[in-house]
């Protein structure tokens, strides 16, 4: 008798991270569940519960798979109050099949994807008016996924560390009024790890990716949070062209045109038929259950 998946009660998640870090692409890829992802997790299913979640599926099908990239969302600094109210809620159920780590599970999730500029403005000395409502929303949930890349190493010192420092100060203040925040879990994800220099470090992101490439931020975070509250992950929405023993091809499934553009922001899925995302499930699984699974 096949057991029905265990129902895991809903988790609300906020996805933050700088522009071009791949937040929406991550969600759209997850929603689309390409064949490569379903091969890794036979029985994996994304069931949208909101219209915005349905759109994610179409974004992947109409754009990503056809060699287009998703448009970023700009922070509308003149209308921040209105924008946070209208920011989409991606409500969905993710059915994760039984793994070596646990039984099959129906995860009910509701995610909001913040424009990248929000993250970039966190530590700004003069933040735009209305940004406090965004912080209120951020602190209303107990699961954050922070997506980062290391394309520009200077970001460790200039952007990530100051942003996390500011967020930690705000968490400490907010915990006084909202004790539930003591249960806040933060999944810090090194995105776009299909690049050769990162791919080999994906299995141990703490030591091989974050500590090596973003040491200032890594040291600060590990000092502030224990493993029950913060964990490091690596993911790649595009993956490599073949990462199973039957079809091994470690070339990134990513095409970057030689047109003067910054490769970090201007990359496209190279081959939609060899689409094997990596590491999309573990951070969500941990945020929802507190348990870590590995791919």
């Amino acid at each position, binding site marked *: 008798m096949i057991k029905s998946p265990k129902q895991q009660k809903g988790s609300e998640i906020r996805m933050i991270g700088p*522009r*071009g870090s791949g937040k929406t692409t991550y969600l759209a890829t997850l929603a689309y569940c390409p064949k490569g992802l379903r091969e890794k997790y036979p029985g994996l299913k994304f069931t949208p519960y909101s219209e915005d979640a349905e*759109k994610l*599926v*179409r*974004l992947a*099908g*109409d*754009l990503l*798979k*056809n*060699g*287009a990239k998703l*448009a*970023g969302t*700009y922070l509308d600094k003149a209308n921040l109050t209105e924008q946070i109210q209208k920011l989409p809620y991606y409500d969905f159920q993710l059915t994760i099949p039984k793994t070596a780590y646990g039984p099959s599970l129906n995860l009910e999730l509701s995610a909001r994807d913040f424009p990248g500029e929000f993250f970039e403005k966190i530590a700004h000395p003069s933040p735009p008016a209305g940004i406090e409502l965004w912080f209120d929303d951020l602190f209303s949930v107990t699961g954050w996924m922070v997506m980062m890349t290391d394309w520009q190493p200077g970001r460790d010192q200039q952007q990530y560390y100051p942003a996390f420092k500011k967020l930690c100060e705000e968490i400490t203040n907010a915990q006084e009024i909202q004790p539930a925040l003591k249960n806040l879990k933060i999944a810090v994800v090194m995105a776009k790890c299909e690049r050769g220099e990162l791919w080999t470090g994906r299995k141990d992101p703490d030591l091989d990716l974050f500590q090596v490439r973003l040491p200032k931020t890594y040291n600060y975070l590990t000092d502030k949070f224990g493993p029950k509250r913060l964990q490091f992950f690596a993911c790649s929405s595009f993956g490599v062209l073949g990462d199973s023993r039957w079809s091994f091809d470690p070339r990134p499934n990513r*095409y970057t*045109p030689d*047109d*003067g*553009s*910054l490769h970090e*922001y*201007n990359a*496209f899925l190279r081959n*939609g038929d060899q689409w094997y995302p990596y590491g999309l499930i573990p951070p969500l699984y941990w945020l929802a259950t507190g348990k870590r699974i590995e791919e």
Partner: protein
Amino acid sequence: MSVIVIGDRQVGKTNMVVALAEGTDNLVIREPDPQSIIMKKYNVDTGDIAGTFKTQQETLSISVNLSTGWREFQTNWIDTPGEAWSNPNWRQNNPAQWQDIKNSVRDSKAVFLLMPPSRNMINPDQLDGGLGNELDKQPTSLQWQNQLGEKLSFLRKNAPNVQHILISIHKADLFCNITQKERKWRYNPLQNFRWVDYNEHIQQAHFKIGEKIIRQHNRQAFVTPRFFITSTKSPVLLELPWIYLGAYLAND
């Protein structure tokens, strides 16, 4: 969600929307009635498409055939007068209108820049009475480069938050074999249409003289342009930028 069409006088901005109103295999303007769009744009006296002398806006409901099926979206189509782009005196003499145009560009989701072919691009054998004696009025390569550079510089300054920049060289029937292009790049929603491959092909085949300017722009801008060639004589080529844009706007 606004799409603003910019480009010099007589490049074919209005001509393009009239051609689209006639419908293509994968794109249909549902509202307003396409016939009314066509009739409104014609100069009754000459029978030609009338030039646009002031900014015109129209809310269009468009159905587009995407990989995930037919989708409908609404867009505010803003057609700008060519004089605003080609004549600095016009801008000085019409400051309020020019400011309105700049505001519209700033607030638009997408900017569609239509460029003419340069004189050197045009194949005299393909003129076929099309441009005829008008060939000399087409920009030289240097003038074309300057036009492209000025427009991109304008967009960096006035539209830092635009999400899509599409640049098309219009009147493709004058500078390439459109039958061949149609064979290679006919859009079929049932097969993956690789937008990045099409973009790269068009950029290398037809935008070579603008390469330095484009690279310079891309180094400075977060949003990089996508390149097309269009012709009112080829619905297959004409619909491509609008299907591309439709994939975003219909899923917004």
